[in-house]
């Protein structure tokens, strides 16, 4: 998936921008995300209903995936069923 690609949740309002990714399936609320939103929202998986916060980056434990949430929603992000977690922000001092 090309960096900069915008993915939408099939289940909720969540939208992410891909910063880094590999070959797995990126999911929200348990269902695969796509560039287009399906006509009908699917059902939310209870395991992936923890919400996604705008502006936060979500990563896997291997450092292969990084997604920036550009629209918040009720579903939470995962890859191939494994939940992603919020990236530790080590903010730089403002420089401009």
């Amino acid at each position, binding site marked *: 998936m090309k960096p*900069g690609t*915008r993915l939408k949740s099939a289940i909720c309002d969540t939208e992410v*921008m891909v*910063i880094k990714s590999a070959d797995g399936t990126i999911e929200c609320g348990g269902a695969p995300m796509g560039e287009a939103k399906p006509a009908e929202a699917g059902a939310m998986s209870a395991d992936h209903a923890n919400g996604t916060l*705008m*502006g*936060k980056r979500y990563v896997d434990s291997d450092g292969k995936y990084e997604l*920036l949430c*550009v*629209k918040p929603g009720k579903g939470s992000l995962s890859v191939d069923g494994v939940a992603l977690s919020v990236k530790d*922000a080590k*903010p*730089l*001092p*403002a*420089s*401009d």
Partner: protein
Amino acid sequence: MNISLLLEMAAEAGADRIALVCDGKRWTYGDLLAAARGAFELIQECNAEYVALLDESSEAAVIGLFGAALAGVPYCPLNYRLADEDLAALLGRIAPALVVGDEERVARIAGDQGHTVLSREDFALKAQGTVPADDSREYDPGEGVAVQLFTSGTTAAPKAAILRHSNLLGYILGSVEFASAGESDAALVVVPPYHIAGISALMSSIYAGRRIVMLPSFSPKGWLNLVEQEAVTNAFVVPTMLGRIIDAFDKAPETNVSSLRAIAYGGGKMPLEVITKALDRFPGAGFTNAYGLTETSSTIALLGPEDHRAALESDNPKVRARLTSLGQPLPTVEIEIRDEDGNILGPNEAGEIYVRGDQVSGEYKGKSALVEGGWFPTRDAGFIDEDGYLFLSGRADDVIVRGGENMSPGEIEDVLLTHPAIADACACAVPSVEWGEAVGVALVLREDHAIPREAELRELVRARLRSSRVPEKIVFVKELPYNEMGKLLRREVKKIIS
């Protein structure tokens, strides 16, 4: 992805929060996004291929930047200080454009170029009043050029440096956390809108959710008053501004600048004396030295607040010296030092600074300056010490080559500046029959001091450096030439000395 994402996310998170204060007017994130969408309509209507700003900073800079982004045309702010002839040439290179600002001047010097010109007020009003018909607008996906900046030319015409959406987003997303600013944070933006720092400041503050407080025209008193008035927490200045601010503050120490927490600086060499005074006058503020270029979307290395204080408080000369360093590379870029043949150099070996990363463009209209592997040669001479701190040793072109020996003007200037009677110094090459080039210096005498004897100055340099560095020609001038960004114009000094 389009840089408009930055404003869209800010507006989603807080449409009613104040984003910008300029000349007493307040704009929310919602206001700015709506105006940017309105500007999109204006740009489409007049078939502009660029959006140009010919004006001081105002809300028009923000509306222009993001309106152009939505429309998929480059935003090209122009330097209004240029002479008519030079400005007309640049306008010609971006015609037809939607030009916002000095209508009278554009009509006079470029009236036949096919531009659509609006005053700042008209542009803002029209943009706000032009509501997009419905939700079905196709905004540009952001795969092209977001910003075009003309870099100051040397002998040839200015180059058109290009920054793509991907470069700018790479920089902002890599260095700023979304909505990380506190509710009451405010950033004073005074850098000209046609300089990369003036553009990145807008994007950083918007993405961080930090209110922008604009000072369209710099004066030290104006700066201090605005800090007090708006409880400014963050500021970016060029070194000459900081010096003048300190002088003004010393004359008006009752000004309440206690809100200041973060002062960043860049764009030129910061004299040790000025940063030392600044650390003393603003003890509650963290200082950050930012090193970057137009071609790298601004900052690629920085020296943060902890490093500044540690250097100031240390007895270790190596740690103290860091106060004059550029700090460490951003985690999202790689920096290397290479010699003239392209070989990578080791710690403390001086060569040319090369950089690579998503935010690095190195692209000009029509060609790229990148070399193999996506590396950009900065034309700045420098070295990295054994702890990873980057130091500048002057532009590669400023090196004096005397009898085959390379010398950096900076080290000669630093020695001369330690003399109590010398307020400013610039060293450059003067022609020499014997050596090819030799060292010439232009000096500014400090007020209330007598001109030192040349022999005394020469001995000072000989003792601290070595005999090859001793200036052959010494001239005293009233002041050294700087541009409005505080950059020393060495080429001009060379002419004065010769």
